[in-house]
Structure formats: C-alpha cells, structure tokens
C-alpha cells in the first residue's frame, strides 16, 4: 500500500471517529467540553484599555500621540482636497444652495478624453475606446459626481499604498530582520477584516474621508510589499554583480539597477493595490468617504434595486477601466522604450496635444454646459427594470426556490453545522495538529495548534465553528461550480472570454448589490449568506483551475494521446492531476475571499465571527472587534499554511518545479 492511500485511510478513520464523537458526545454528557478558566484571556478588555490610553494619555512630551495622528491626517487631507478640487468641486464662492462656481472642476468630456488618450498611449485604440466607454457610462447614468469623489480617493490612496509598499518591500529585501517581523504583520493586514480596525482608525484620525483613505491603504498595501520583495529577489544576480563591478553605491544600485529591472513585476503590485482599493469603496463610504459606495448603500436602503445596480456597475466600470489601464501600463513598461530626441514639442507631441484639447474643451464648457456636465435630460436609467425582474421571479418562482433552499439546508448546511458545533474542542485541536504534522512537520503542527488555542482563549469558539461551517460549505460549492467553469474556460477561447467577463463583474460589483435581491428571494439567514459568499469567492476557483489546466506541459498531454487516452481520460488522469498544485492555490484564495465576505454577510444576520466584528463596530468596541477579527485571521492563517504545505507536497510528488506561494 502506498503512503498516500494509507494517509487517506487514516483520515477516513478519523472522520468516522469525529462523526461518532459528534453524535454521541451530547448523549454522554461530554459536549460541550468546558474551557478551563486559565485558557480564557480577556484580550478584548486589554486592547480596549490600551486604545483608551493611546487616545487619551499617550504623549511624547511636547505633543500627544493623538496630535501626531491628527497631523498625519491633515497631511493626507491636503492632496485629497486637491484631487477633489480638480475632479469634483472646482472653486466655489459662497456656501450651500447659494454657492456659485468660479472655476468648474474638470468636465466629463475632459476626463473621458484624457482617459481615452491614456488608453491609446498605453496600448492602442481598442483600449482607449474601452476606457472612454466606461467613463461615458458613468456620465450617462448620472453617476459622474459620485464617481469622481470615488476616483479622487483612489487617486490619493493608490500612490500612498504603492509608495508605502515599495519602502516596506525594499526594507524587507535589504534586511532579513525586517522581513521576519513584517511577514506576520502582512498576514494580519490581509486577513483581519477591515471592520475590525475601523473604530481605532476613527478614534485616532478623526471622522471623514481621511480615515476611510487610511483604512483603504491598510487593506490594499500588503500585496505591494510582497510583490516588491519578490520582484527584487528575482532580479538576475548577474545584473546585481554588474552594478557592484561598475561601482554603484548602495542607493544607485537600488534606484538605477534593481528597481528598474523589477519594474514589470512591480506594476503587477500597483494593479493589485488599485483593485483592492476599489474593493473598499463600500466600506469606506460607511465612514464618510461618500461617492459611489454611498450611492449603493443609499439606493438599497430604499430598496431601489435598479439604482443600486447602476451605482454598483459604475464601481465595476471604474474598477475594470483602471485595471485594464494599469495592466497595459505594466506591459508597456516591459517594452524597450524608444528614446525620442528633439524639442520638447517633438518628444511630447502626443501628451501636449491631448492637454491642449482638454484645455480647449474646458474653455468651451463655459459656452456649452453639456460639455462640462452631462445634461440631465439625456441621463439614462434602467428605471424599474431590475426591481420588476426580482418581483417577477419572486412572485412566480418563490416556491421552487424555497424547495431548493429547503433541500440544501436540510441535507447539507444544517447537518454540517450540527456536526462542527458538536465536536469537542480538544479533538479539533488534536486534528489540527495532526494535519499540520503530516503536511508540514512539527513546526506547522505547533503553529496550527497554537492558533487554535488562541481562538479558544478568546471565548469565541462557537462563533469560530459557525464561521468554519459557513465558509467550508460555501467553498465546497464554489469549488463544485468553479472547477467545471475553469475546465470550460481552459478548453475554449470564447468561453474563457465570456466567463472572464462574468467573473470580473462579480468580483468588482459590491456584494451589497446582489445581497438584497438574494434576501428578497431566500429571506434572512445562512442560505442567503452562503449564496453571496459563493458568488464572491467563485473567481479564484475558476481562474486558478483554468490557469493550472492551461499550463500542463504539452508533452504530458501528447504522451497521453499517444497512449490512446480518450478526452475524458486525458482530463481526469493527466490534466486535472497535474493542475492540482495550481488548483490548491485557487482553493486557498477562495477560502480567503470567503472569509473576507463573511463580515459583509453579517449584514443579513449570520451568527458567526463576522457578526461579532460587525456588532463591535456598531458599538465602537475596539477590543471586541479586533479580537473577533484576529480569530478570523487565525482561521485564515491555519487554512493558508495547511494548503500551502499540501500544495508543496503535491508539487514534489508530481516532480514539478516552482516556488511555494506565500
């Protein structure tokens, strides 16, 4: 018997024991196993107290800690106000309804033109046209002003995130100690839900757009740090040696050799920062960022589904436009540049003529207001279409949907929930440690057990198990839908394009937009939450399996064909097994997205850790929020480490090369 089969058998046995434990423990009076008092730590109280000290008394002598954070806030507010001046407000005299515009902000046509020109410059006419269309959508559907408010905060948040990420990434590259300290911090930044640290940010940096900007930066920066360190490490050593030989100083080596060589990779990080910043639009609008996120929330409070979808799609349009543009720029940075010579005009012909045209349109806007502000009479709207659609489904198909829901709840969700909640905690911790030991050795076993103990010590064990259940079931279903879609996308170019577009939309459309119709059709509860999580977490399952299948070495497939495999055999015996490591990474990402979504689904009344975070937020309870957030992070890190170790083993077994992604 080979070791793999032996291990499967072992886990099958353990699963049977777990089932028995969950089934009989309550009958035997064993569950729930009480948590000994010395394992309970009042971390929440300690964090809240520390926070109070930080806000109220901490001082550097001349000024307090709060003065410092407020000064930082004022510093960030400055460029933000500048961006708002250019994009949203212009210069106004007077206040409120009597305000008179002296210098208008950039008009819709000007901005659209500049974006189109950027697209043409970065890639070509097709991209330019696409960007132009995205921005025309914003204007035509009456979302211009909100979109520009959102754009103004993105324009400020992204450079801060990129610059901060670069500095930290370079530091981690240069000094191993920094790297070691930074690595767990980045893990936490990526896994602790934003809701958990909104309250302390509000306390320290004041209410309003700046606090929202900072929350966005914290959330969006980690990939930039990671990408920077990785990119610098992967610069060919010959290049670095060369820079030493020609006598570069340390700073020259970094700025003239290493960073330029790593530029294409760095641009991938920039793209990530942009996309993650746009993910934060809704949450940022809850604490005063306004803009499109506020439009979405406001429309859905009125149950105006159409307006919610329109505003949500505006976020998608903005996100997809900025994503494509930054990707095109990343590719452009890989092309060898053509050095133009001659006068300023000759070198910057393109840029200058766009600038001149923008200026001309702005001036024309004084005479023709339609060039400045999209005329209200020409504003498009889907009006009642979306509401009517939901109403139609609701009235005609509710019973069928209810039957599906009942079956899913009865046969899958509730049994899994009962099973997980009935498991005694010492058994769960033991299983975690065993899994860690088998996949990654003693160190991983210790990590898993320690993180499990941490969750136990917070007193949130039951909520953590509920989280595990909702997340687990959602990931399972996302996998069941996502992997076949990935197979389809890998097999045909057309399918790939259609599926890609759907997935891009699902990932950038704020979940709140579809959460409310889902509640209308399935009521408040776990099932609605599960649907929302599946929709959001589907993307990586599809992407990674498609990518894995496409990168199967052609020799392997040829060998299979020569041996006379049918198409089905090729898929199940060769392509899927060799795509396994990639698919495991996809699974990892799916879990991360599902966990991040659970905080949002708290809005439809789940009873898990996400709900704890949300309650703490509304009560402005710093400690409780952070503790629940850390418990979510602990689950995420356990899953991440176990799967990464599993993927490494699978790679080794398949004899594939490649580094393990963190």
């Amino acid at each position: 018997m080979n070791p793999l089969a032996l291990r499967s058998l072992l886990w099958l046995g353990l699963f049977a024991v777990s089932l028995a434990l969950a089934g009989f423990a309550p009958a035997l009076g064993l569950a729930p196993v009480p948590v000994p008092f010395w394992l309970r730590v009042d971390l929440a109280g300690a964090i809240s107290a520390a926070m109070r000290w930080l806000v109220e008394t901490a001082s550097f002598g001349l000024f307090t800690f709060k003065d410092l954070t407020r000064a930082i806030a004022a510093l960030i507010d400055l460029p933000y106000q500048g961006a708002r001046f250019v994009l949203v407000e212009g210069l106004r005299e007077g206040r409120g309804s009597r305000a008179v515009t002296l210098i208008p902000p950039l008009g819709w046509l000007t901005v659209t033109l500049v974006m189109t020109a950027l697209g043409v410059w970065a890639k070509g006419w097709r991209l330019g046209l696409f960007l132009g269309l995205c921005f025309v959508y914003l204007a035509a559907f009456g979302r211009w002003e909100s979109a520009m408010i959102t754009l103004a905060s993105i324009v400020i948040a992204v450079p801060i995130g990129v610059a901060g990420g670069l500095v930290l990434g370079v530091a981690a590259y240069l000094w191993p100690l920094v790297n070691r300290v930074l690595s767990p911090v980045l893990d936490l930044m990526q896994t602790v839900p934003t809701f958990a640290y909104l309250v302390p940010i509000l306390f320290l940096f004041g209410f309003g757009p700046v606090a929202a900007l900072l929350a966005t930066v914290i959330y969006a920066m980690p990939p930039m740090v990671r990408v920077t360190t990785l990119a610098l490490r992967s610069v060919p050593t010959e290049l670095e040696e060369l820079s030493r030989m020609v006598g570069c100083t340390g700073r020259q080596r970094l700025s003239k050799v290493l960073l330029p060589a790593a530029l294409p990779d760095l641009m991938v990080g920039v793209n990530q920062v942009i996309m993650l910043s746009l993910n934060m639009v809704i949450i940022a609008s809850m604490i005063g960022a306004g803009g499109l996120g506020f439009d979405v929330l406001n429309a859905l409070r009125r149950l105006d589904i159409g307006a919610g979808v329109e505003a949500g799609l505006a976020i998608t349009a903005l996100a997809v436009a900025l994503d494509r543009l930054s990707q095109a720029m990343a590719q452009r940075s890989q092309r060898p540049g053509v050095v133009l010579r001659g006068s300023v005009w000759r070198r910057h012909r393109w840029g200058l003529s766009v600038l001149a045209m923008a200026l001309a349109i702005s001036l024309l806007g004084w005479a023709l207001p339609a060039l400045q502000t999209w005329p209200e009479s020409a504003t498009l709207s889907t009006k009642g279409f979306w509401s009517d659609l939901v109403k139609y489904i609701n009235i005609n198909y509710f019973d069928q949907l209810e039957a599906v829901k009942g079956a899913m709840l009865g046969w899958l969700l509730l049994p899994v929930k009962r099973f997980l909640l009935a498991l005694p905690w010492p058994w769960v911790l033991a299983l975690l440690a065993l899994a860690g030991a088998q996949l990654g050795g003693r160190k991983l076993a210790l990590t898993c057990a320690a993180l499990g103990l941490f969750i136990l010590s917070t007193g949130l064990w039951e909520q953590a198990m509920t989280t595990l259940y909702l997340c687990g079931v959602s990931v399972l279903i996302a996998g069941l839908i996502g992997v076949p879609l990935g197979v389809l996308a890998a097999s045909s170019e057309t399918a790939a394009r259609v599926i890609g577009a759907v997935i891009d939309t699902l990932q950038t459309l704020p979940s709140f937009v579809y959460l409310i119709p889902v509640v209308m059709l399935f009521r408040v509860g776990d099932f609605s939450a599960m649907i929302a999580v599946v929709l959001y977490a589907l993307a990586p399952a599809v992407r990674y399996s498609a990518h894995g299948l496409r990168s199967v070495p052609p020799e392997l497939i040829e060998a299979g064909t020569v041996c006379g495999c049918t198409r089905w055999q090729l898929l199940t015996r060769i392509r899927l097994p060799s795509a396994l490591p990639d698919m495991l990474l996809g699974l990892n990402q799916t879990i991360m997205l599902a966990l991040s979504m659970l905080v949002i689904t708290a809005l439809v009344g789940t009873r898990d850790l996400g709900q704890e975070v949300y309650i703490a937020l509304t009560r402005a309870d710093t400690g409780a929020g952070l503790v629940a957030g850390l418990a979510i992070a602990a689950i995420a890190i356990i899953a991440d480490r176990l799967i990464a170790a599993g993927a490494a083993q699978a790679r080794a077994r398949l004899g594939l090369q490649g580094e393990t992604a963190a």
Partner: protein
Amino acid sequence: MLKTHYLGTAALLAALATPVLMTAAQAEVESMDPIKLTLHDWTGQLITTGLMAAVLEEAGYNVEQVQADYLAQFAGLKTGDLHVAMEIWETTGREAMDEATAGGEVVNLGSTGMQAIEEWWFPDYMKEACPGLPDWQALKGCAAAFATPETAPKGRYLGAPVTWGGFDEERVAALGLDFEVIHAGTDAAMFAELESAYQRQAPILLWVYAPHWAPLKYKGEWVKFPPYEPACYTDPAWGSNPDATHDCAKPTGPIWKVAWKGVAEKWPGAAKAIEAFTISNDEMGAMISAVDLEGASIEDTVAGWMDANETTWKGWIGQ
C-alpha cells in the same frame, strides 16, 4: 459675440459680489469655523440634518455635513471632531446618549418634536389569517400562520439588527408567544424581506419603525401589546406574567438632538437655533415618502420645506 462676453463677465462679477453682500446683510456670526452636522444612513435623518444645515446657513453660519456611524459618532462628539447629531432615538440611542452626556462632553439639546415608534408590525392581509389582530393575544393562537419551514411549528418574527436591542427574546418568553426571533443584520435586509412577502401576500411579522417610509408604503398595523411602563422592564411583578420582565410593548419616545458641549460657547446663536428646531411626525413622513417613494432628491425636498415654512425657521434664528 462681444456682447455675450460682456454679459458673461457681468454675471461673473455679480456672482462674486452676491455672497459677500448677503453675508453682510445677515447677522454677524460668532465664528466662521464650520459646524459639523453628522449624516447617517436613513432618509429621515438626512432630511432633518439637511433642514438644520439650511437654517444655520441662512443665519450665516459655515456648515459641513459629514458621514458618521450612528453609535460610533459619540466618540467624535465627545472630542469635538463632530459637533451636532440631529436624530438620537430614545428607543435605540438612549444608552449611548446617556453614557456620552454623563461625562458632560456631550449635551442634549432637546427633542426634535418627532416621536419614535418601534414595534412588531404586520401587513393588513394577515388579519384574515390571524383574526383578532392587532391585539397581541391573537398571536398566541396563530403562530403557525407566521411559520416558515425553518421555524415550524413556531411562528417567525423578524427582529432588528442585534445591536438595536429591543428585548424581543425576553418579550416572546414573558408573554408565552410561540415565536422564534430571527435577527436581520441591517434594516435594508429587514425591509427587503417585507417587500418580498408583500409582493406575494405571504405571511410576515417584523420590526418596523417610524418615521420611516415602510408604514407609509405598505398597508398594515403595529401589534398592540400591553402599553409600556418603565416598571415593566425592571419589575417582574408588573404585567400579565408575574415572573418575568418585558411583558409589554416597546417604549416610544422622543427623537433627541445632541451636540458637543463646545457648540454653545463657540456658536451660541447656532446652539439656540438647534434647540429651537422642531418638526412633526406628519411633516417628516410626507418628506420621507416624497424622497423614498416618489424619487425626489433630498436637496429639493429640503428647499421646498424652507420655502413653505419661512416664518417658522426665521423664528428659530431670531430674524
């Protein structure tokens, strides 16, 4: 061409001059620093705040409206980052307000004149399925009429987000109702369920509050529980169940205005105007339905009220 240009310049000059003249004509205000009013995420509050802001602007004050969470805002009101919150509901905000005013950093500037109602609510068509409503005794006999597959045989009651409190679990137990309390995470989810059930004329029993657009849009009534008295929430002996508290309705109460303590020192005139501000449930209900049901913008609605009630608000700012 020359003429239009000249006209344009003249208009520009006039525009430049107007605000200066207007400010001069108005009473001088104590400080031109912006007064920050908080905005939350329900329409009534946006209108109340919009009205107050418009009135203060008429008085010559510099006003800013900022987004802030309903409960989280007290942190800002204590430190003076935020200045005025126009709607703190007796029913949901009392504890947070008491906590903030206890230290003296936040002061209560009196009632807005509006009365908050929060109670169990059902659509009219449920009277057929459950005769005897709106009296709460009727619920005892027809829990099954409100049941869903998940809660059957118990009835299903959709409660507000957990943080809103409301003691519904206690109420169900104390009154011996065979209902299960399900908490929605947000009120958007709550009213999404109501809309869905109403479209299908399906059974539903949920928490509805007023002033809000829902009781204006849907035909229905609040359940009549034994009227609230403070003793009911503290003394088990009170009411029909001698062993339990909360055997009565939810309290109703005023919607309060609160402010940072520094407002009265820095902008005494503004503090007076805020204290003077009152509006009735009916007026507010009409404006909420104009915005949420007829699609009017909040700015237009506020401007319409300002035009129609000039004498009222001029009295608040002593003009």
